[in-house]
């Protein structure tokens, strides 16, 4: 059987990649596909958001400039404890939808007083375990680096700007960490935790806000680099004329894997914990040198905030 492909006229598209568009704006005729931020109506592809056009393989998407965080399974987020109830923590995850952290996600079957562990006002790094049909998020702490933050500051940005803050393969965030010596953890819900020297925390906050504001402009990585060099080393960067072109444009960035960015932090804390543990073991051994107790007899601490 022969299938006749319909003859196509000129493929009509009215926008270019990275154009700023607004809701209702006609992007293209029927020949294209509508992705996120776009919809098809009466044979036209239209934008439903204010954002930048992303065109790939005839698929038109609009990357929003602003948008609220809607929880998705597998995301890592930063949340605030807003209430402690019988067997769950109520979490504010910077979203129209609140999250719950069930006690069994933390303790397993053990019974504990919840507010002794996390109390109202605590800030946690969490994973979205499940999202129900009304978008309520069940949260968990399973995964490396999850748990309560101690010290540091919270910076609030538009969740849509998170990929830009990370940069391609972490280029942007790693550069900031290198120069400021701050620990930085980014939640996909637009909350960022920063910890370091007091002044560096504030500088990092400023820089994160600059990135948020100028996310859709080009040459941002270099601009931030210059600022960091100027503010921290007090020098302008040497000219590197052969600088590779910055590729991490706002519309090109894929969703990053954020948990990677907490690994080093968690490795550090693990080391500390191990050191403490070894210390205690030494004490323990010395005290009980006559009795031979195996390690396994020691009650296990089931609540380990990794």
């Amino acid at each position: 059987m022969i299938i006749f492909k319909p003859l196509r006229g000129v493929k009509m598209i009215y926008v270019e990649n990275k154009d700023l568009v607004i809701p209702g704006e006609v992007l293209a005729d029927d020949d294209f596909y509508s992705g996120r931020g776009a919809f098809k109506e009466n044979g036209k592809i239209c934008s439903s958001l204010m954002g930048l056009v992303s065109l790939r393989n005839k698929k038109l998407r609009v990357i929003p400039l602003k948008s609220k965080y809607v929880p998705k399974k597998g995301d890592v987020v930063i949340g605030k404890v807003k209430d402690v109830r019988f067997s769950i923590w109520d979490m504010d995850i910077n979203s129209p939808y609140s999250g719950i952290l069930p006690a069994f996600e933390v303790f397993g079957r053990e019974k504990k007083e919840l507010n002794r562990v996390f109390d109202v006002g605590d800030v946690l790094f969490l994973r979205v375990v499940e999202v129900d049909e009304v978008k309520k998020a069940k949260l968990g702490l399973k995964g490396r680096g999850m748990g309560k933050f101690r010290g540091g500051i919270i910076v609030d940005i538009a969740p849509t700007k998170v990929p830009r803050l990370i940069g391609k393969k972490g280029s942007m965030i790693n550069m900031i960490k290198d120069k400021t010596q701050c620990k930085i953890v980014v939640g996909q819900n637009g909350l960022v935790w920063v910890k370091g020297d007091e002044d560096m925390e504030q500088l990092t906050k400023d820089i994160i806000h600059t990135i948020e504001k100028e996310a859709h402009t080009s040459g941002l990585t270099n601009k931030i680099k210059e600022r960091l060099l100027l503010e921290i080393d007090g020098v302008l960067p040497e000219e590197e004329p052969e600088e590779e072109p910055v590729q991490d444009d706002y519309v090109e960035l894929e969703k990053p894997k954020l948990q990677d960015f907490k690994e080093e932090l968690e490795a550090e804390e693990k080391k500390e914990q191990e050191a403490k543990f070894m210390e205690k073991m030494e004490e323990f051994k010395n005290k009980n040198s006559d009795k031979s107790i195996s390690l396994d007899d020691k009650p296990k601490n089931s609540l380990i905030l990794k």
Partner: protein
Amino acid sequence: MSEFIRGDGRKYDELRPIKIEAGVLERADGSAYLEVGGNKILVAVYGPRESYIRRLLEPNTGVIRCRYNMAPFSVDDRKRPGPDRRSSEISKITADALRPALMLENYPRSMVDVFIEVIEAEGGTRCAGITAASVALVDAGIPMKDIVVGCAAGKVDDRVVLDLSEKEDKEGQADVPIAMMPRTGEITLLQSDGDLSEEEFQQALALAVEGCKKVSKIQKDALKRKYATG
């Protein structure tokens, strides 16, 4: 139609001077400021956000709530603060005018709040409020099929004219405020107040639609101006 000149020097199909600015407030998720003639309107949008008003929520989509309010100093004789019957009605029809454009299916059980504040009133505040509210909704990142725009036509001295001023509204015979989605031409708000023949109504509707198209362009310019990459 004849080329007569109106009391304030405008032609029959001429809008009052109009100016729109997007993103004027810090706290709100989206905001807009609009001046048309002597009207000064400020709009803030919050949401989609969690709402505790259970009875307003819908399981499959987000909902919109509007509050149209006039400042006590916005009119000649001080207005008592707080809602009255007029502002309650306008709040309702404004929500109805904006709702068809919203695409809130991805935000079930959430609420979008639109706060329209008339800082100074000079005729046609409901249309101005809708026009500014749409810009604020876009500024807040709310998904929409189109940017709703409002404009009125009416009858003054037996003539159908566009965008009535306060004086024309008081002395005129009819006022027809409309709102529409400009891409498809669908009407989302229509009121008519006064005496019109069928033919006059047709003229008024056509004129208001033309007015909406002009205002729509100014809305779009305001948004692109605010966020264009430098």
